[in-house]
Structure formats: structure tokens, C-alpha cells
């Protein structure tokens, strides 16, 4: 069998991605760093210009990558921030409006302006549908350019303004190159830190599994705010650098083509990757330089590249470079949970009280989804919820976990009413759940998916993650260790580094359970976890759920598999047409006449 001796499952064990693969991940960056530092030795002045341009673009794209690649927001018009940053820096150093400021201060002020406007441009994402948001960002890009054209007294209108000139030693061509290269390297480092933090994982959760992200306590507004602020700031700094590089800016330098370039670089690079978009940016900056006719066709080629990527390799360069996930997985894998590890995961037991539904009612139009339901979930018990399709089981779960607001009645934990429609708050109350269809981030590894479940337990702030400060690193160690333990509990620790979309259906279900366990939940709500599992797996699932309940968790199990229900539940409630048909012990329910005729049959 594949049971491992307990010692091997110590924190930081070999099953977790170790230092060897961390070095492997860093290698391409180190190589690029080396090439970049030594570039002046072999590149001529012209290629120096192109390299500097690529560095400036990357400063912007690295921030936009968090918005587009990680958070999945389709912000096409980000050139607006480049324009803002370029003009702010140039006008402040030229001294047309204020007394001339030193360039570094101007860049700093531009960063602040960029952060604010990044937030203004980005926040509609919280209110608007995807396509609408994309169009509004395009609108912003046009507005900024038009304002630059019209506000002649400040921006010079069509005439433009001279760009800032950095002081020695950055005023020479190579000096400026190193300045831009340094900033590009810092941005790479910072965004890589975010990617490997709970914030980066939370962003991918918002992108690919928003509903599950909310259940894990992730607040989309807070996270997007942080990301838009950062992204806006670096985009504006990139604008200042762009102005310095051009030595003179006019509104027509900030074309929509440039916005498209940034956006496509990220998509070519691949979602959720730092290296991919970095290579994408370099590729797209350098490509038109290889033949004069290509310059005119550059946007056309970018568009063709985008179409090909979207249709053929949506994962982009990152997917192509993902060698680790090409290695075949072992066949005939079995899921062998280790319930004995639960006490290690949960620590000391606590008494959360009773989770009670009182006369909850909810209708959709004329349909009474839940019609006056009373339910009690006690800790250390498995409570089954069964009934025919459409009887309101999932709706009940959704009301408890805060996705739907009941129209009457209350949901109480220890007699305190749970806030309505506050699905993100449930994680803080240690109410965890799984979903009818597994909602995982397919592009992330199993381990990362499970770590998402513990997001609320991290203490470090976004800035601390940006700069990889000690509290961020402590959070990471803590989350990783806990996640490995949770995976060991459900029996999937060998699949920790594997991309989630390569897993079998049953493995996805157990992964969701591991993610829920990260919260050490007081109450665990499961929505048909046995669907699609083999008989053997259902037995193991039952044993696991019983063990979880024994540890003090109140388990609410919505299921169709009668065997599992009758095997492990302490109490069963039967729903029909939104109303409770019967409630009692398994023995009582099994012989209940109406239940048998309405649902169980035979």
C-alpha cells in the first residue's frame, strides 16, 4: 500500500516542492539577469535602445500581469497609465506648471498619481461584466489621450513636452539602461513574491474559481484594490521612464497599439506566470526590429499571435515551458486518506455551539425553493440532508454559506444570527464547504489549491509579500505545512505538485475537502461529495467524514448515495419541495413510509 510512515510526513518533507525545484524555477530569471547585466558588452547602441525599451515595457507589464494574468481582469486600456505617468513626470521636471522638481521626486509623485488612477480605472471591474469592463478601460485610454491633447497649458497639447533627464550616472545611454534594468529586476522580484504568496494564489482563485474563493474568505474588492494600486503605480513609473527614453513626448506616441502590445504580451506569456509574460514582452518588443517591413505589420502579427495562442495554447509560453507537468502521472493511483492525522491538523478541540436554521424560506419567482425549514447541526455529528432533485438541498447549503439571502427566518450560530449574503465572512467563522461541481484553479498545483483554503489565516499584508518580509515568509511556511498535512489527511500528498486540471474527478473532490480542512472548520458543509466516486472511494470518504466529526466538527452532508448516508450519519433530514418531509435517525428514516415512497423507493 502507499501508506507512508508518519516520520516522512514532517513539515517540509520531500513530497513538498523542495529547494531543487525552487532553484530550477529561478534559473531562467538568473540567466536573464546575467544577460541583462552584461548586455552593454555585446549589444550595440541601437540594441541598447531596444533593450531599454523592453525593460521599460516590462516594468508596466509586470504590474499589469497581476491584473490580467493573475486576477483575470481584461484591462485592455492600460496605456492610459503610461500616458499619465509620462506626462506627470515630464511636466513636473520641465517646470511649466510647478517649479522644476528633481526627476526622482517626479517619478515618485507619478507613482502615486498612477496608483490612484489605477484604482479609478480598475474598480469598475467589481461592478461590471467582463466585456463591459474591457470596453470601459478602452474608453479611459482614449479619454486620457484626449485630455493630453486638449489641456495645452499643461501638456503642450499636440506640441508635447520634453521628457525628464535623469541625473548622473543615469543620463548616459548605458547608465539609463542600467536604471531601467534595475527597476525591471525589482519589479520582477516583487511580482514573483506576490505570485508565491497567499495574495497571488487568492488572485488566481478569483480568476478561476470565484465562488470557491469567496467561501475561503477571499475578499475580491480588497484584493483587487491592492493590485490596481500597485499596477497603476508601476505603470506610471514606466511612463516616466518612457518619457525619458523618448526625450520628448506627444499624445500620439501613446497609441492603442501600445496598449494591445502590453495586453498580448501577458496572454502570450500565459496566465499566472511571471516568466511567461516577461519573455512575451521581450519577444514583442524585439520582433518588429528584425525586418523593416515588419514594423508596419507589427500590430497585425501581434493579433495573429494572440488568436493562435487563444485557440491553440491558451496557457501561452508558460504552458510550453511547464516541463514538470508533462511528466506522466502514475496510473492506478488510489486515494488513501489518513484520518489518524486529523488531530495533528486540528489541534485542540473547541466547542463552536450549534448551527441552527429557523423557519428559513426562500423563493425564486414563484418557486418556493425552501419553504419554512428548521435544521440543527450539532458539533461532532454528521447530519445528512437528502431528498429528490429540486427539493432545496443545495439552496439550503447556499443560504448557510451566505450566497443566498433567505427571505424570512434566520440562520444562527450559537444563537447569533449569521450576516446575510456575507459569504466571505463564513471562513472567518470556520464554516467551510465543498461544491457540487469541484471548483478548483485548474492551472495551479494541488498544493496551491489547498493553500488557498487557508488564506484567512495569513497575517502578512500585501506590501510585506511584495517585499518578501519575514512575516510573509512565515505565513508561507505555515500555509505550506498545513496544506501538506491536509493533503496527507485526504491521501493526496503525492499529487501535491501536480497541476489540478490533470487530476481525476475523485481526486478533485478530495482536494476540495483538503482545502476546506485548512480552515480547521467548526462546521463542514459538503455538497454531494460522493458523486462520481468509486465504491471503494465512497467507503474511504465515509470513514474520513466520520473521523472529522469525531474531532468535533459539525458535518452537514448533502448526498444522493443512500448507503453513505445511512452508514455515517447521526441524524438525517429529508427534504421535499423545500419542506422537511422527515427528520430522525437513519433507522427511523429508512422505514419512514413517505420517505420511502417519495424518494428511496422499494
Amino acid at each position, binding site marked *: 500500500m502507499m501508506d507512508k510512515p508518519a516520520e516522512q510526513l514532517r513539515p517540509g518533507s520531500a513530497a513538498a516542492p523542495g529547494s531543487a525545484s525552487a532553484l530550477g524555477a529561478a534559473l531562467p530569471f538568473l540567466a536573464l539577469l546575467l544577460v541583462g547585466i552584461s548586455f552593454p558588452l*555585446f549589444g*550595440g*547602441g*541601437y540594441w541598447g*535602445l*531596444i533593450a531599454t525599451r523592453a525593460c521599460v515595457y516590462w516594468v508596466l507589464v509586470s504590474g499589469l500581469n497581476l491584473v490580467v494574468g493573475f486576477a483575470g481582469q481584461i484591462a485592455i486600456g492600460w496605456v492610459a497609465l503610461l500616458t499619465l505617468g509620462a506626462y506627470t513626470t515630464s511636466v513636473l521636471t520641465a517646470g511649466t506648471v510647478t517649479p522644476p522638481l528633481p526627476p526622482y521626486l517626479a517619478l515618485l509623485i507619478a507613482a502615486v498619481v498612477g496608483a490612484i488612477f489605477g484604482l479609478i480605472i480598475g474598480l469598475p471591474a467589481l461592478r461590471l461584466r467582463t466585456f463591459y469592463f474591457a470596453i470601459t478601460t478602452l474608453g479611459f485610454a482614449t479619454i486620457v489621450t484626449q485630455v493630453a*491633447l486638449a489641456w*495645452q497649458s499643461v501638456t*503642450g*497639447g*499636440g*506640441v*508635447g513636452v*520634453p521628457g525628464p533627464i535623469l541625473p548622473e550616472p543615469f543620463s548616459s545611454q548605458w547608465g539609463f539602461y542600467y536604471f531601467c534594468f534595475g527597476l525591471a529586476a525589482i519589479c520582477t522580484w516583487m511580482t514573483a513574491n506576490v505570485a508565491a504568496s497567499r495574495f497571488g494564489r487568492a488572485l488566481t482563485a478569483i480568476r478561476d474559481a470565484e465562488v470557491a474563493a469567496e467561501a475561503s474568505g477571499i475578499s475580491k474588492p480588497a484584493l483587487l484594490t491592492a493590485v490596481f494600486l500597485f499596477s497603476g503605480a508601476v505603470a506610471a513609473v514606466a511612463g516616466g521612464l518612457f518619457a525619458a527614453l*523618448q*526625450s*520628448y*513626448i*506627444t*499624445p*500620439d*506616441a501613446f*497609441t492603442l497599439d501600445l496598449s494591445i502590445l502590453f495586453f498580448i504580451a501577458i496572454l502570450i506569456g500565459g496566465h499566472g506566470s511571471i516568466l511567461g509574460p516577461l519573455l512575451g514582452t521581450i519577444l514583442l518588443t524585439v520582433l518588429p*526590429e*528584425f*525586418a*523593416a517591413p515588419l*514594423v*508596419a505589420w507589427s500590430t497585425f502579427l501581434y493579433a495573429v499571435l494572440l488568436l493562435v495562442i487563444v485557440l491553440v495554447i491558451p496557457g501561452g509560453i508558460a504552458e510550453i515551458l511547464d516541463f514538470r507537468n508533462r511528466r506522466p502521472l502514475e496510473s492506478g493511483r488510489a486515494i488513501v486518506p489518513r484520518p489518524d492525522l486529523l488531530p495533528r491538523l486540528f489541534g485542540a478541540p473547541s466547542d463552536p455551539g450549534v448551527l441552527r436554521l429557523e423557519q428559513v424560506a426562500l423563493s425564486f419567482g414563484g418557486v418556493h425553493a425552501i419553504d419554512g425549514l428548521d435544521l440543527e447541526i450539532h458539533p461532532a455529528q454528521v447530519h445528512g440532508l437528502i431528498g429528490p432533485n429540486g427539493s432545496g438541498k443545495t439552496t439550503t447549503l447556499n443560504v448557510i454559506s451566505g450566497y443566498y439571502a433567505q427571505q424570512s427566518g434566520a440562520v444562527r450560530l450559537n444563537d447569533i444570527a449569521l450576516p446575510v449574503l456575507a459569504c466571505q465572512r463564513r471562513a472567518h467563522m470556520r464554516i467551510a464547504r465543498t461544491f457540487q461541481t469541484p471548483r478548483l484553479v485548474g492551472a495551479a498545483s494541488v498544493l496551491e489549491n489547498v493553500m488557498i483554503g487557508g488564506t484567512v489565516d495569513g497575517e502578512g499584508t500585501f506590501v510585506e509579500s511584495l517585499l518578501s518580509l519575514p512575516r510573509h515568509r512565515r505565513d508561507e511556511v505555515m500555509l505550506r505545512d498545513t496544506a501538506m498535512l491536509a493533503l496527507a489527511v485526504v491521501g493526496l500528498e503525492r499529487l501535491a505538485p501536480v497541476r489540478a486540471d490533470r487530476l481525476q474527478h475523485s481526486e478533485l473532490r478530495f482536494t476540495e475537502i483538503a482545502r476546506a480542512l485548512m480552515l480547521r472548520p467548526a462546521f463542514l458543509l459538503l455538497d454531494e461529495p460522493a458523486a462520481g466516486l468509486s465504491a471503494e472511494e465512497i467507503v474511504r470518504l465515509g470513514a474520513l467524514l466520520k473521523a472529522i466529526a469525531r474531532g468535533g466538527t459539525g458535518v452537514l452532508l448533502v448526498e444522493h448515495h443512500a448507503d453513505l448516508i445511512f452508514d455515517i450519519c447521526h441524524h438525517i433530514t429529508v427534504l421535499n419541495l423545500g419542506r422537511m418531509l422527515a427528520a430522525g435517525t437513519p433507522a427511523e428514516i429508512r422505514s419512514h413510509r413517505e420517505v420511502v415512497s417519495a424518494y428511496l423507493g422499494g
Partner: protein
Amino acid sequence: MSMTRRQTLASAGAAVIAGGLAKPAIAAKEPIRIGYLPALTGLSSSTGIGLNRGAQLAVQEINEAGGIDGRQIELISRDTQSDPTKAVNAAVELTRQQQVHVIIGPLNSGESLAVVPQLARLNMPELHPCWVDSLTDPQKYPMCFRAAPTNRQIGGAANRYVVDVLKLRKVAVIGDTTGYATASVNAYVPMLKAKGAEVVYQGNVDAANPDVKPEMLRMRSAGAEAIMPWSVNAGFLSRLINARGEMEWDVPIVGQTTLGSGQTKALLEKPEYWAKVYPNNFRSCCFDAQGRLPERTAAFVERLHKAKVDTSDTLLWWVAAGYDAPMMVAEAVKHAGGTKAEDIVGYWNQLKNYPGIYGDISFTPEQHDGYPDDEIVMCEANSLKDGAFRLAPGYAA
């Protein structure tokens, strides 16, 4: 004529590997490399297309005559696409990669505003035909020369015609949103006011905007008696002329030379709309009362016909100015005995009445604007023939 970038990359790479980018020794037969930055596509391409024809003819003639001291001229051209960013890129590439000796252009002020400071930093001699005043400065840009008039000269002539000859007081000044037009409008409005005229409308409109009617209606309701457009965009100018015709508004249009180009003519809805349009032009490209061009120009037009260079859809002065630039470079190399930057610049700094087709060009170390005031005239657009015009009515010499 021009190497592809792929060849350039390969050869540059080889040179580097061989050990550093040493300047090749001046061999007797090494070509004279002139970098050229026309805008052949994009919103401001009409000038570039015209100038380019002249430049190509000039280089062809020089090379067919054996070159300069046995050296052929190589004109390495990069289309800036009317984009200042691409212009900067190209200027640096021509300087560093192609190692040109002189750069001609950019041909549009918007692009030059970005390129001129760059080339000054790279110590590259530059000759350009752009009009915006700030594009020469013997202190800041000692190697940059302008073989063309400035905004002050052009605006002066046009404003003089409207106020002093046509005797009109209320003027509407309109430009597109390029750097050139913005700078021009900003320069000309105070000049008009100083002459006692009343500027009843001043605006910059996107050249690509298909609808100029609102602007024209605002001009009319402000009581404008003359319209002065400043833009090199033939489409934009033609739309203004068409709108005036559709509105049946009888006011003169006085301004940009492009108003008279064949491109503009082709976009007019009715040929009669071209009446009462008085663009700037230059004495060298205007016929006298007997319908004859100045001798030098007539000979030039002959050569154009023989070389099958088309002038019907452009302006003769563009072709002439384009022709003069490589000629002036060739002249400089011949007299300086080589392509060293200081020698070329030194020669130009003493240039007196160089007999260009476009005009007589003179420079001094303190004055890098070479075009004489008195050769700027106003002409009548619908007298276009072979790219040249008749002088505007009432325009005394």
C-alpha cells in the same frame, strides 16, 4: 539601395565578434551613407511622399554622374509612419547601426520635436525641412540645420495676405492635433492679434475626424471672414473645403501649402470648391504673369518629366525641397573632402546662397534657418499645373 535589417544584424554581429565596433577606415570607394526619415504612411504622410520623390531623384542623378569623388550615395530610408516613437527608434538605428554620416529629416515637425534633441546628443549632422520655430537652435543643436522656412516666416506671409491684402479683420484659425499644427496655431494667433486682426475662432481638431461641419458652423456663427487652416493632412483640408462649399459660405481659405496639392484636389467633391483657396507657396514654384516658371525650376521640371516623376498628386515645392537636401549633403561632402561630421557642419555654417531648386539657402554659425523671407508667397490653388501655381490675386511682389 538600403540593406535589410537582417543583413545588418548579421554583419553587425560579425563585426562585434571580430572585436569591437571600430569605425572602418575611409576607403576611397566607401559609399556616402545618408539616413532618411520620411513619413510615407500615416496621417502626415503627404509631405513625406512628395519630398521622397525629389530625394530619390537627386540620389539617382548624383550616382549616375559618378558619385562624389568616386563615392556613391547610399540613401538609407526608414518610414516613420508619422509616429514620433518610431522616428526616434529609426534615428538611433540609423546612427548606431547603419553608421550613416548625415541624417535628412524627419519631414514632419511632430517627429522632429522628438528626434532633433536625440541626434544632437549623438553628434549627428542633421538637415530637415520642418517649420516649427523651436526646431533649430545653434546653441542647443549645433549640428542641426533647416533648409526651409520657419513658422514665423510662413505665418507672417499668410497673415499679411489676409489682413493687409484681402483687408479682412475677423479670422478663424484651425489646425489638426499634430505637434506641427498645434505649434503653428499657437504661433500665428498672437501674430494676427498683433496685426490688429480679431481671432473669432481658434481650434485644433483631430485630422481623422470625418465631420468638420460643427467647427465650420461655429466659425460662421462667430462671424469669421476668412479661414486659416494649418495641417499637412490632405483629407482634413479637403473636408474643410468641401464643407465650405456645401454650406455655400463665401469666405477665402488662406493657409497651409497642402491646400493646393494634387492629393487635396482629388478629394474635393466639386472642382469649383477650389476657388478662393490661397495656400502658401514659394516663388521658385510659381509661374509669372506669362505662365513661365523660373529658369532653374523649369529645367528641374524637365528633368522630372524625363525621369517620369509624377507631380500631379503632390506639390512641386515638396519635390524640389526633397531634391535639394541630398544635393546639399553631396555638396558639403565634396567641399569638405570627406564625411566627417565637423567638416560637413563647418561647410554648412558658411553656406551663402546655395542655389537650391526650392530656394537660395544660407546659413551662418548663429543662424541655422536657411530660407530667405522674400521667397515666400501666396498662390492660387486652382491654378495648379505640374505642381506649380499662379500668384494669388492682389499679391504684390
